[in-house]
């Protein structure tokens, strides 16, 4: 390991750590140590880790604040549900359906990322943040207008923007099944998401993101973040590289969304609102901008914390806020930094990422 580049070694440690966690959790579940409620958190945790990783690509690597990341998760979730439910008969294999759902979810979210990116990436800073926020909300509202059903003739989709139509307007046959009922969201979904699928998705996402960061494209994206004019003056095409990062980020959020959506039998679009976007942003900021390992740890801890405090009812969000403030204070204090610096190895002269 000694003759590897520092960043390669660091990333290897992250991967090994993830693998250890995977094994430990699997063993614990096998032994029945993890209770039902704890096991139920595993898939959402995986989803939020992927969300944090993908948002870190936009916020940390590209350097633009996106406040609509939950929108892409929503697109992934509902396309994933539609794919899984409509393929129920054609593809009986659950893992295959899950893969198909995540792939299609990623592709759709990526397409929307591209379409939204065309106007949004012309903006910078606060303006970009505001517009992504708006798009996130628009996506949520659009999904709320959808009525989707499936029968042997195929998919029936109504875009119910006036709110006057009902499920019966889908004209499904006897054997047909409604997948999405407008504002009531997706009901009767077969939950097929598994923890293993979640871990595989995390590995895949991390692998892709780290490869991009250390590639020519990644260097270009970070160069744009560091100094736009200098980047342009060395011949980097700004819009194209920003678009690559944004679309990748959206597609990964879409895959995470598909997994998330297929973890519940009922899901409403209102889940993917501004609060969810902010939640993921908190993971990213607290984990460190551009620091992928930090994103993973922050996402896990900050997702588990409010759940662990559930018994404290009214006080749990209070404690959550206090912990956030404490972490921010602690990581900013020179004493704490020098304390943590002792545990860092193989790093000299600044952070690689």
């Amino acid at each position: 390991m000694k003759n590897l580049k520092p960043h390669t070694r660091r990333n290897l440690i992250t991967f090994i750590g993830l693998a250890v966690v995977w094994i430990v959790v699997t063993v614990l579940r096998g032994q029945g140590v993890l209770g039902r409620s704890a096991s139920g958190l595993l898939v959402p945790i995986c989803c939020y880790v992927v969300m944090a990783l993908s948002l870190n690509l936009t916020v940390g690597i590209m350097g633009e604040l996106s406040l609509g990341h939950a929108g892409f998760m929503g697109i992934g979730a509902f396309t994933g549900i539609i794919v899984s439910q409509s393929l129920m008969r054609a593809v009986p294999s659950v893992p295959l359906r899950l893969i198909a759902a995540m792939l299609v979810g990623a592709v759709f979210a990526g397409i929307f990322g591209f379409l939204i990116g065309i106007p949004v990436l012309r903006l910078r800073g606060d303006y970009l943040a505001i517009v992504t926020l708006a798009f996130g909300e628009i996506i949520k509202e659009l999904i709320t207008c959808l009525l989707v059903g499936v029968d042997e003739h195929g998919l029936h989709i109504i875009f119910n923007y006036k709110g006057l139509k009902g499920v019966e307007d889908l004209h499904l046959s006897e054997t047909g099944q409604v997948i999405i009922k407008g504002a009531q969201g997706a009901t009767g979904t077969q939950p097929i998401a598994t923890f293993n699928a979640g871990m595989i998705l995390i590995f895949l996402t991390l692998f892709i993101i780290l490869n991009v960061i250390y590639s020519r494209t990644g260097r270009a994206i970070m160069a744009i973040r560091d100094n736009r004019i200098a980047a342009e003056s060395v011949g980097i095409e700004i819009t194209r590289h920003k678009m690559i990062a944004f679309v990748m980020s959206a597609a990964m959020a879409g895959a995470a969304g598909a997994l998330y959506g297929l973890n519940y039998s009922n899901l409403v679009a209102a889940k993917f609102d501004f609060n969810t976007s902010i939640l993921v942003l908190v993971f990213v900021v607290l984990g460190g901008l551009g620091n992928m390992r930090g994103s993973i740890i922050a996402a896990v801890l900050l997702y588990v914390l409010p759940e662990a405090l559930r018994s404290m009812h009214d006080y749990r969000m209070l404690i959550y806020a206090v912990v956030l403030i404490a972490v921010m204070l602690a990581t900013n204090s020179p004493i704490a930094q020098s304390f943590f610096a002792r545990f860092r190895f193989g790093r000299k002269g600044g952070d690689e990422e």
Partner: protein
Amino acid sequence: MAELLNVNDINVYYGAIHAIKGVSFHVDEGEIVTLIGANGAGKSTTLHTVSGLLHSKTGSISFEGKNIAGVPAHKLVEHGLAHVPEGRRIFLQMTVEENLEMGAFTQPNANTPASLERVYEQFPRLKERQRQIAGTLSGGEQQMLAMGRALMSKPKLLMLDEPSMGLAPILVEQIFDIIRQLHQAGTTILLVEQNAQMALSVADRAYVLETGKITLSGTGDELIHSDEVRKAYLGG
């Protein structure tokens, strides 16, 4: 000598403000040409128009006989035009060598080691600081890095925007020594400067810009001895 860059009658506007009013000039191969003028005369605007960051409503800009007006900035690097922007815009968080490598972004990877070698030869100071984070360099070193980075793309024309800005007099001397050396090594340079004395002392030819128009032109020697220039820029 062959004409490398020809700028003919460009007009540039910032909204309603007419910043460049019919400017024409040319740069021949192997020359150092300088545009001098006071603050707000339109020097940087002219340079930005040539390098594609701004666009002219009229006239033409041709490089090696090809019209380059309207070509986006990042494409011009491939054509052999390198722009060293004002204010030492380097990638502060990258090391010196990584900054230089970014300069070779449009070049095939195989050429990078040779280009690095060449730049280190011209800027021995950068070689000493190879692995240092660029943000920790001094102002003069950052300017050298910005110039070195531009040279990595093997430009036919190097455009320098106020390389002396914000530097101590001794560093300004150093930077202009380097400009002379680059010129002797055969690089064609278009230099925009407020420091008229220094700029005219290295330039083959010079143009004086005032409020968006060229008011004077001639060889560096002619202008340095011209009464108008002496009064306006060289302190009598």
